[in-house]
């Protein structure tokens, strides 16, 4: 795997840009896709947001100063893009963010790219009741197996606060799943 700093340098230079972009996409597409998908839930929306995220990364690479790691910068862009996407979607539909989240979960039942059964649907309903931060931390830790310091860099939150958020999220989800 190519070193991150080299990749950033190549992305900034016109002649190596295209090739470096291909490497970047191939390295991060799956991770970012699953991160986005777990926020927006629907595959087509996740595809749109993923493409916008990569285009934004490509357009703004000159502004990337290297103070943080490339992947955490990309996760931040992906997170912001996903949350903004949901806000715009609820605004267009004229419903509240909470109503939108619930309707997204209910739409999963007829989604051909959702293979979950009743328990997975219930999990999504539980996740929809959580504050954004708790939901993000839970998905990143539980399903994406990210380390706390990686999540901390991506969400710009301290490890201590993340652990608390994760613990709270697990407790709330378990309580939701136990209840009928």
């Amino acid at each position, binding site marked *: 795997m190519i070193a991150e700093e080299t990749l950033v340098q190549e992305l900034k230079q016109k002649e190596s840009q295209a090739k470096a972009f291909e490497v970047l996409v191939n390295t991060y597409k799956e991770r970012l896709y699953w991160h986005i998908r777990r926020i927006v839930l629907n595959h087509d929306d996740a595809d749109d947001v993923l493409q916008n995220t990569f285009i934004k990364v490509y357009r703004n690479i000159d502004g990337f100063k290297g103070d943080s790691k490339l992947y955490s910068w990309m996760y931040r862009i992906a997170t912001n893009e996903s949350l903004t996407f949901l806000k715009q979607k609820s605004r267009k539909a004229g419903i509240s963010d909470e109503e939108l989240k619930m309707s997204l979960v209910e739409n999963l039942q007829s989604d051909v*790219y959702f*293979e979950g059964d009743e328990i997975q649907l219930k*999990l999504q309903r539980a996740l929809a009741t959580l504050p954004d931060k708790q939901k993000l931390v839970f998905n990143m830790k539980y399903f994406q197996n990210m380390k706390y310091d990686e999540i901390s860099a991506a969400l710009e939150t301290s490890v201590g606060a993340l652990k608390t958020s994760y613990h709270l999220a697990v407790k709330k989800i378990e309580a939701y799943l136990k209840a009928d």
Partner: protein
Amino acid sequence: MGKDKKNKFKTPEGYFENFHDRLMDKIHSEENPQSESLIPKSDGFAVPEAYFEDITPALIAKIEAKDTKVISINSYKKYYYSIAAVAAVLLLFFGLTWNSNSEITFDDLASSEIDAYLESTEFSLSSYEIAEVVADENLELFDMLDNTLGEENIMEYLDENVEDFEDLNLDYDDYE
């Protein structure tokens, strides 16, 4: 002193043989709480076949297409505000000074055309997207406004457009 003779306790058959395995399982489950949890290990999301193979060429094509178009889009955005400003000034100027008996001139036509164009064309830009292309570091609100907004207008706008007042991030202490 036979240890076995003294010991009256019995263990199930094979207890000591698989003790190590069971101990390791327990340690593993305590280190990975999700393996014991009610929460399912998979969340059931799937992707279309070959999605991850197809996304790379699709993205590269998109970047290349945008690269060729980027000049026109950017310059268009850059001039959008200038054109709107010029149109507004022309409209104001001719509105105030133009004799209504006069024939329609090119200038008059142009501003009304521009107005109609701006009104009828779907820019498909949300206010967020517009905000993204406008550099706001050195921009003050009053650079864009000739007239100060009346308090009534502001309240009316907020009343119609803001659902949740927490969105405004008001510091309530300032208003007490």
